[in-house]
């Protein structure tokens, strides 16, 4: 019998899908079959961070075969132990299907094959609570190299040449940012990791923090050494308890093993990291607001310049980077800037992690090389769900925009996205199928930013509210002809005059849907029609032609809301109850049912 290792995904997605139950069951089974010697819990069973394909959870990987079992029920565990572990036979009926064929190995999943794992190199592979595991995977080697072998300038040069750009939204060249801080002649400097991750549906930073916390500490340490800072803060939102727990343990372990503290790697360099838990307001992700929040003040944005690089935390020069940005650092130092620069496109090197959601086969985290096209991304994620047609993709979260079908071959990199009117943002990727109402999508995102406005400046506090009211009116069928123009004027004002990035970017979803789907807005306003039937107030009820009805009653059976009542001559639909799903019209044998007013 082979010596095996069993990896259980313990990312937040899988935990809520029941990963712990699977783990309990596994332990029971191992005990029952007296396998505890062969599978010592501490060595052979590993809880990992997020493996990526979240909608397949709970999931396990059995090594060395790399067999992947997903969507597990506790009852499946018994079979896996008896068949796979004891008899070395893959349990075929528990394998996941890709395009109709069963996939045995995790690496062979379509979802995994299309990806390139740099940031997520360890996540899903190592036990995030184990420093040992991290060290085994070359952990802290990069930091050792940087601190003992490299000059500060050399590191900054290396990061600059790698072409790494900030993954927190704005895409500012990381090396340049470090250089600004390094140049400041101050004793106190800080390194801050922005783990606020407030975009709705985003969880890439969370996965890294949960699945590979030491890589962040290592990235920050290298930054600290390069710019001359001895203190780092990791700011994580309170809604991420697992990330907080894993980070706390990681910091403690690193401290006790000498990877944090004084005289690191026997040099003069000291570095410490402190965890700060944020209250979770979206605007606290904005760098100046975040720094205020760490200082214990109200999390409201501040005017720049001065930029944090010159005057940040407690008015000292501060490097603030996103989680994903820091996760890239150790591997760049380890493998060199050239290696990194070769990955991706001209202006955007490396990879980007996306939280793929919406109408796709597989939702979850996808780390793809920069330049991967939208179409390829959708393929990786298993195509548009339910065989529907693709309509658009919303990239970049509430600050981003929508890209329609005609640009499906657009490569995903900073510059192409910007040209198409959106941004990389933190990596939201929501696939929308043909049934999606774009006005409704715009409303959803604006609703979010409006709620999250800190209230400091009028365009954001009030302009977004006014825009939202207009969108609301439009989706209710009360739109007026001048509304679209007013909406654009408001959007322009909010964009150009808001204080911080939150306000400035908040009209993007509206503007980009207006740009690509104006006719859909116009249909709402002029014809009082929602082409996709999403806006309830605009869809007309179905009715039954009394003459044609043969009173077969088939329609009553399919109506999900019991809107159809029988009669002697004909069945009839209560227009107030009808939700216009059209199910009845499809089953009517004589085509007596149609949409619209019975006039």
């Amino acid at each position, binding site marked *: 019998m082979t010596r095996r290792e069993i990896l259980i995904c313990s990312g937040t997605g899988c935990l809520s899908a029941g990963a712990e139950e699977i783990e309990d069951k596994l332990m029971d089974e191992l005990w029952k079959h007296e396998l505890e010697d062969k599978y010592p819990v501490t060595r052979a069973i590993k809880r990992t961070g997020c493996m990526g394909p979240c909608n397949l959870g709970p999931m396990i990987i059995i090594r060395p075969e790399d067999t992947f079992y997903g969507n597990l029920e506790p009852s499946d565990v018994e079979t896996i132990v008896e068949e796979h572990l004891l008899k070395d036979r893959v349990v075929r009926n528990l394998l996941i299907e890709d395009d109709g064929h069963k996939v045995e190995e995790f690496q062979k999943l379509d979802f995994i094959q299309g990806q390139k794992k740099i940031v997520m190199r360890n996540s899903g592979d190592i036990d995030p609570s184990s420093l040992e595991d991290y060290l085994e995977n070359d952990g802290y080697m990069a930091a050792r190299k940087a601190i003992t072998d490299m000059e500060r300038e050399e590191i900054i040069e290396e990061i600059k040449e790698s072409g790494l750009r900030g993954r927190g939204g704005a895409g500012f060249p990381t090396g340049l940012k470090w250089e600004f801080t390094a140049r400041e002649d101050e004793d106190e400097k800080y390194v801050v990791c922005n783990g606020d991750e407030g975009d709705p549906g985003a969880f890439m930073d969370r996965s890294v923090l949960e699945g590979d916390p030491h890589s962040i500490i290592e990235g920050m340490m290298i930054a600290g050494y390069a710019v001359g800072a001895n203190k780092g803060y990791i700011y994580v939102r309170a809604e991420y308890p697992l990330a907080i727990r894993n980070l706390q343990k990681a910091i403690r372990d690193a401290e006790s093993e000498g990877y944090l503290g004084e005289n690191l790697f026997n040099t003069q360099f000291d570095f410490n990291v402190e965890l700060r838990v944020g209250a979770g*307001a979206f*605007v606290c992700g904005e760098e100046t607001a975040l720094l205020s929040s760490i200082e214990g003040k*109200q999390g*409201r944005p501040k*005017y720049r*310049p001065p930029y944090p690089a010159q005057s940040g935390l407690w008015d000292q020069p501060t490097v603030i980077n996103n989680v994903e940005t820091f996760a890239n650092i150790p591997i760049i130092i380890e493998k060199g800037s050239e290696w990194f620069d070769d990955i991706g496109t001209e202006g955007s090197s490396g990879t980007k992690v996306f939280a793929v959601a919406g109408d796709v086969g597989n939702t979850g985290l996808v780390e793809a090389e920069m330049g991967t096209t939208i179409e390829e991304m959708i393929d990786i994620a298993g195509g548009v769900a339910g065989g529907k047609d693709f309509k658009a993709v919303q990239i970049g979260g509430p600050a981003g925009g929508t890209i329609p079908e005609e640009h499906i071959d657009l490569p995903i990199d900073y510059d192409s996205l910007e040209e198409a009117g959106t941004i990389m943002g933190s990596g939201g990727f929501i696939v929308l199928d043909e049934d999606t109402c774009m006005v409704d999508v715009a409303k959803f995102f604006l609703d979010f930013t*409006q*709620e*999250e*406005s*800190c*209230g*400091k*400046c*009028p*365009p954001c*506090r*009030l*302009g977004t*509210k*006014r825009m939202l009211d207009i969108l609301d009116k439009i989706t209710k069928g009360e739109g007026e002809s001048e509304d679209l123009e*007013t909406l654009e*004027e*408001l959007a*322009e*004002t909010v964009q*150009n*005059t*808001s*204080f911080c990035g939150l306000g400035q970017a908040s009209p993007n979803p509206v503007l980009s849907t207006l740009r690509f789907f104006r006719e859909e807005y116009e249909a709402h306003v002029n014809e009082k029609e929602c082409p996709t039937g999403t806006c309830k107030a605009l869809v007309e009820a179905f009715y039954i032609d009394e003459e044609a009805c043969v009173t077969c009653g088939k329609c009553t059976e399919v109506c999900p809301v019991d809107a159809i009542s029988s009669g002697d001559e004909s069945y009839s639909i209560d227009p107030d109850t009808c939700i216009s799903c059209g199910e009845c019209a499809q089953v009517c044998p004589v085509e007596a049912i149609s949409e619209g007013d019975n006039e």
Partner: protein
Amino acid sequence: MSTVKFTVDGEKISAEKGETVMSACKKHGIDIPKLCQHDAMENVMACRVCIVEVNGEQIQPACGLKVEEDLEIKTETDEIKKYRRMNLELIYRSENHYCMFCESDGDCELQDLMWENGIDYFEHPRLFPDRPIDSSHEHIVIDNNRCIRCGRCVRACEEVVGNQTLAFGGRGLENEIVADADVPLKESTCVSCGMCLQVCPTGAIFNKHSMFKGIKDECDLTESTCLRCSVGCETEIYTRTGHLVEIEGAESEMESGGQLCEMGRFEPLVDRTEKIDDVIYKENETEKEMSLAKGLEKAAEVLDEGDKISAMASGNLTNEVLDSFSEAMRTHGALFDVVGAKRHRFEKEVKRRINMIEGHFIDDITEVMKADHILLYDTSVRDTHPVLASYIRRAAMNGTRLITIDAYEDRFWEHSDISISVESPKTQLTRLINQVVREGKGSIEDLTRVSSILGGLRVHPRDVMQVVKHLEESTYDIIILGSEIIDRWSIRHIFELAKLEGSYLISLNQASNQYIRSLETEGVYEEPDVAYVLAGDEDDQEDMKKLIENADFSIVQASKRSELTEKADLVIPSLTMFEREGTSVNINGEEKEVERVMEPKGELKSEREFFEELAEKR
């Protein structure tokens, strides 16, 4: 300071490096519309009304943008005007701005901008939010329905008053002004200075006693000096048809930020005590009214008859009144004193005995904000000299180490780094501190000796050591001696300490007018035949009360009825503080103009002439 040149709407302008575009423009007479910016506070760039076009591409707030060589600024492009109009309209329409019955109608910076920008119709509907109104406070109303979230009040309370009472509560549309942890203002840490209502550009914070009494443009404005304490804040007093409407601090006074305190801003407005217009002579339990001339004769007669005569004046009068009064009293052979002068005399004596030079005394109290250590002995400063107190709080907030010593409640406990409580400001503590400074730590290491020196004091030797340590560490420390200290030993110890440590001193007394320092005063007879008290607007002065109680015959000259006038045998009207004009000396030793705000209403037109006549009637 290097200068840079840049263009505004085609005009070349030079400005100092580091200056904002807004302030540079202002100096050249170009007013960029603004709502949140205020000279007395840090800029937060919140209102987005001052937006300008930069180099033909960017849009930036002029109040935040720093001037740079060759910047190309446009303030009135079509785009800018459109955005500005939109933001103004959004601000106006999102809250309940019903100007026609707003307190600030006609005095409102938002309304002005609406008019200025020709917003004669609206594109966006009113939102009708229902927001709280806090009218719990005695003087101040906060109506969030008219608040534009400019944050001036919040910044004023923190940066100018050093008080941090007001804050923004809630996010986004729920963003509102709250006091402390959202308690009614009356129950909050508010010190009732009224700075917030002075800087509020709209009708969101207003003065209960001034409301609906008149638009400032339609009022008469008098610029004067507040005579409620020796800080002597510059005031702007608004009156209409001879009635007081509102008192504001002069915002040109940059260090104070235009502050006033409750005494200066509100008390004159709430004062409803009956004015004294006629001479009242009390004989055999009956009151007799007489003309001013008769009163003067009566007073002269009584003074002539008296043997031991004590005269005492309030310290809140003008130089001219003090001069003429003391002159008149001296010609009648009286001993003359002014409230607050006793403390000054003690001080003078101490200075002479320990050979103290004037250089130890600060001639600008705003220096407090530059010190690295402040030792405050007697925290009554918060109530007696509130604006000086605000400087102390501001200093403490900005990192100055504050050591406070008081016998009663420490009125700076929130800001104090070391707070020492003594049974009463007794001499032992100062002596002890003094001794350590003089003889070194060794002298206190013997704790038994310490406790014998300390006697019944609730003070730990450790605290004493701390105080000494900090004073020794500091490079610029200021010792402030409150006005309630009137024991010679304490004054001596503190002065000596200052001398030993090279500290600077601010020594306060009860008089608003520090002219008393140049006046000749002396102690008065405690049990005189005749006491002549010139009270002015004063009513609760213990020394004055004691004096007339012990006199056979007492004359009180005052502007309004009080306990003093009740007890007096002869009451003569004086002018009120708003009727008086002249000069006064503040704590910095500067002579300040006190302007006449209202014409004297009674028979008395000039106190000086009255006293000159009285002197002649010898």
